[in-house]
């Protein structure tokens, strides 16, 4: 089967400020099976997310898989402090697209 973009498997892919120096991404699934599909594919890792955003892996501040919530959480260091010169997204809420377009290989 051909790979499918994350947005077709997860129910929510979102981005948001977590304080003025971080942007946090959440991938949420209603169904456990979809969460497991994404997790077991190995396609979402700090390395792959960094690559999707043109970042170095050292810019990934943290990465969590949260069984209880069928969720994966990735946090990056903001390219610039919130509201400083060149800010394009004050709430950090429109940064999710490269993540939602990441391809999940299906077996």
């Amino acid at each position, binding site marked *: 089967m051909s790979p499918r973009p994350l947005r077709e498997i997860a129910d*929510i892919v979102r981005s*948001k*400020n*977590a*304080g*003025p*120096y*971080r942007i*946090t991404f*959440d991938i*949420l699934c*209603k169904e456990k099976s979809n969460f497991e599909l994404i997790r077991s594919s190995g396609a979402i890792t700090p390395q792959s997310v960094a690559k*999707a*955003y*043109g*970042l170095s892996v050292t810019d990934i*501040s*943290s990465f*969590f898989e*949260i069984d*209880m*919530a069928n*969720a994966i*959480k990735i*946090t990056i*260091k903001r*390219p610039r*402090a*919130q*509201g*400083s*010169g*060149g*800010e*394009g*997204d*004050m*709430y950090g809420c*429109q*940064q999710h*697209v*490269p993540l939602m377009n990441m391809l999940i290989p299906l077996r």
Partner: protein
Amino acid sequence: MSGITVLTPTGTLGYGFGDEALARGMSLKPSVIAVDAGSTDPGPHYLGSGKPLVSDVSIKRELTALIQAGRNVGIPVIVGSVGGAGSSVQVDRTAKLVREIAKETGLKLKLATIRSDIPIERAKRAVAAGEVIDFEAGHILTQEALDETVTLVAQMGHEPICAALDAGADVIIAGRACDDSVIAAYPIWKGADPALAIHMGKILECGAFSAEPFAMDVMLGTVHDDSFVLEPGSIKRRASVKSVSAHSLYERENPFKQGGPGHEIDLSECSFEQLSDRQVRVTGAKLSETDDYYVKLEGARLAGYRSISIAGIRCPTTIAALDGILDQLKVRAIEYFAPSPISMQFHVYGRDGVMKELEQEHGLQREVGLVIEVTAATQELAHAACHQISGAMLHHHYEGIINPSGNLAFPYSPSDLDVGPVYEFSAYHLMKVDTPTELFPISIEEL
């Protein structure tokens, strides 16, 4: 201990709630109404300028409903981070609205205001004593940064709010406070487990954002001995294990460990259980006190004054040449206004205006929106430079130009807009204190 119920009317005071939801929530006999009114989330402007995030009209309308609801049954109303950033000028502004409400409704009440502004000299002494550490800013706090800071606040924990409750306050208007502390203060004051109360605060502070369908609306939480239970005010919503657990991740980095003033909460053993169709029961939060008590400082500095110009570009030859043109204009403007420094930013919508360096898709653009932004030491200089750039861009000649009559489609005359002072965060650091209440003076008045 019998359950202690907190009613949180909405995620941010001023953003609304349903009358039906408030009425139904009040019928569940809450012990307190507690709501958050600010955050760093809207950016540094509200901290720096002292301007309110939400209009007085909205704040007064909602505070009137809440104070009336609270006074009817004799329960306190607690508002934290008032005005958006919780600075003294914002505390004063909100307290004035409460006085007007008391006068207009004829309600008698005891008003407590809690300030959270930190004198710059106090913070400088702490920096000199090595009592300030970086949180996430990636740099240390310096004396110079503090000298430039126009407003400095610290996030209070629940303790100053508990002190205001000790004083018998009916309405508490608190400066900058941890979102969860605003919700947790009353249950903790009544003897609830702080771990459960603070965890409940983290979820409840966004109102019915943890319910489905989510909204800025009423949410209730009841703390028991070994758990807390969440339920939306409106019967049109429900709390589900999914909605609550998903919300636990929102706007925070670490879903398992969260630091607060004087403590760290461990959520790794938490469990969520569907208690009834509309209620979720949460257990398992653990709290450990930290050896030293740190509060988070938030400071803003004036970065200058901003003028902007908004224009569209449709010609493919201009779009193709855009980066080179903008680079040239930048160099020319810096030379033209030297030695006065000017800072320029170009937002190219339709290309990478939203994501900037994080944008990885580079397709063909049919048209782009250009926002030219200039920040300078005075509004006059920012305006002059912005017009110099927009005018130069309008008539710029570049290799391959096909339409020499103008490169920019302006929607407005004047083409350049003054948008006022610009603030930046100057402090986002932790400062050690001797006691949880020393920085947060309380004043009480009978209305």
